[in-house]
């Protein structure tokens, strides 16, 4: 099992490497540069700036420098936020985005799975239809509509929760953003769990479990849950992608100082290093999630374990 894991890990590193390389060269190859936004600079100043940021050197040399600094955990200076390096910017914002993302994922799973199971156990009842209707809403309506609406209801009208803003260590400010972020993956997880649970409950081994006189709760939790979760495990990587995407918007609306807004701002300002740094972070997160999911498959189904 451990050997399998390290093989996958070893495979992931080249993928990351390719992503970094491609991103780097594509950006350098693009027309225009980070300093084109400002008014036309006198050529000497432009040259100075370029030299300061190392842009006057051949592309290969720049690449080499970049890789070296990456190994030191340095993403380079931000072209736009002149007083900060990308590392600093990411360092400040990442913990918040991480907290937001983890909480959203937790809500999506901890609410979605029981909800889907409940719907499956009450198949074709009113409760089933109600649950699945909520799921459609979650899937269809984007977070940048859900969050402001929630904010309007709970913040402006009911005054229960703050509409936007953030304080270190505050949970109240995270409630609405986490909810809005968690809703689409929650809906998917509920739907997937329901479908999969319905199938598993038809299996012969579930019939055996009932025949043994085990109470319903034991049959579901010990016998039915793990096989039913396989499609959910497959969904985890797209779920992370969805949460990352959603965080861009949610952080902007809720005024949370995470790294999501940097990606958008970096794009608009053509801040190379910032966008590059963000791409690396996001890619690492997704690839990492992929590895975790692989381990998860092995745990869910012992047949996979031994085959590897």
């Amino acid at each position, binding site marked *: 099992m451990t050997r399998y894991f390290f093989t996958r890990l070893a495979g992931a590193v080249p993928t990351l490497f390719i992503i970094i390389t491609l*991103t780097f060269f*594509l*950006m350098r*190859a*693009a*027309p*225009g540069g980070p300093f084109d936004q400002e008014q036309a600079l006198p050529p000497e100043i432009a040259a100075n700036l370029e030299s300061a940021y190392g842009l006057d050197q051949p592309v290969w040399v720049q690449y080499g420098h970049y890789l070296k600094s990456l190994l030191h955990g340095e993403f380079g200076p931000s072209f736009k936020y002149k007083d900060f390096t990308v590392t600093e910017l990411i360092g400040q914002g990442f913990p918040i985005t991480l907290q937001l993302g983890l909480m959203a994922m937790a809500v999506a799973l901890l609410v979605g799975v029981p909800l889907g199971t409940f719907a499956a156990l009450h198949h074709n009842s009113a409760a089933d239809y109600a649950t699945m*209707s909520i799921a*459609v*809403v979650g*899937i*269809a*309506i*984007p977070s*940048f*509509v859900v969050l*402001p*609406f929630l*904010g*309007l209801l709970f913040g*402006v009208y009911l005054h229960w929760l703050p*509409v936007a803003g953030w304080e270190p260590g505050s949970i109240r400010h995270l409630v609405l953003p986490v909810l809005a972020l968690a809703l689409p993956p929650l809906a998917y997880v509920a739907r997937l769990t329901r479908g999969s649970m319905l199938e598993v409950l038809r299996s012969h081994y579930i019939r055996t479990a009932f025949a043994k006189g085990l109470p319903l709760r034991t049959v579901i939790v010990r016998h039915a849950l793990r096989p039913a979760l396989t499609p959910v495990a497959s969904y985890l*990587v797209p779920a992370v*992608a*969805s949460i*990352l*995407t959603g965080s*861009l*918007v949610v952080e*902007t*609306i809720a005024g949370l100082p995470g790294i999501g807004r940097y*990606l*958008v701002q*970096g*794009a*608009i300002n*053509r*801040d*190379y290093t910032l*966008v590059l740094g963000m*791409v690396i972070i*996001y890619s690492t997160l*997704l690839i990492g999630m992929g590895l975790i999911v692989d381990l998860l498959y092995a745990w869910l189904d012992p047949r996979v374990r031994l085959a590897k």
Partner: protein
Amino acid sequence: MTGGFAGDAVRRLRANPAAVLALGVICAVVVATLLGPWLNPNNTETLDWLHVAARPGLQSAHWFGTDRLGRDLYARTLAGTRVSIAIGVVASILSILVGVSYGAVAGYVGGRTDHAMMRIIEILSGLPLIFFVIFLTVIFGRSESLLFISIGAVGWLTMARVVRGQTLSIRQQDYIAAAIASGASSGRIIAKHVVPNVIGPVVVYATLTVPQIILFESFLSFLGLGIQEPGASLGTLISEGVGEMEAAPWMLLVPGSFLAVLLLCLNIFGDGLRDALDVREG
């Protein structure tokens, strides 16, 4: 296969009240966006300085109120909806064309070409599209043609997969072997035999692609990477509305509700259609 099949499907669809209702709402919205301007003469440009950030009301000249600059929200919302729907439909058609062709070729040719083509789709599926768009924006700056290309890129993956699956199974059928044996060219076979038989799933996934695309476009516009001023789609309007949330909530509620309802109904209808035609992804 078609006559009875389609009739069967329509019957099943009609038995699904949610889907029928959703379809009704969609039609109502489309009609409203087209006829709306005639009902209320306010246009999207005029700045009504007397009624800046006015509340909505059926008595006043501005049924849905106005925004910060005094522009009529009714007109702007309907115009924005029109833009969103238009982009949704056009981009969907593009991605359907690309997806169907790609999938049909992959499924028909089979073998290693198919394998390679599917690998590409797998890799692309893993990338969240927004990052790709942001990436291109960094390189090329904001532009509306970029917008169209990236939006079109949203829907074709699923479509290609579905069509490939269908094509693969059709390909196995005997009448294809007969057609090949009688000397028909591949192109002709694909056009005459494969395509008509994949219509069912294509229609279903097309209906589901439209809301995906509308959502993606709104998302981009919301972030400021999509439709630029002075044009506006629902995403842009919502973005403005968020800024004015506490002072003028209708600026958020009107376009937000329109988008929510539109997407919800498109999804419900698409789901209903999928159930009625009993389609599975390949």
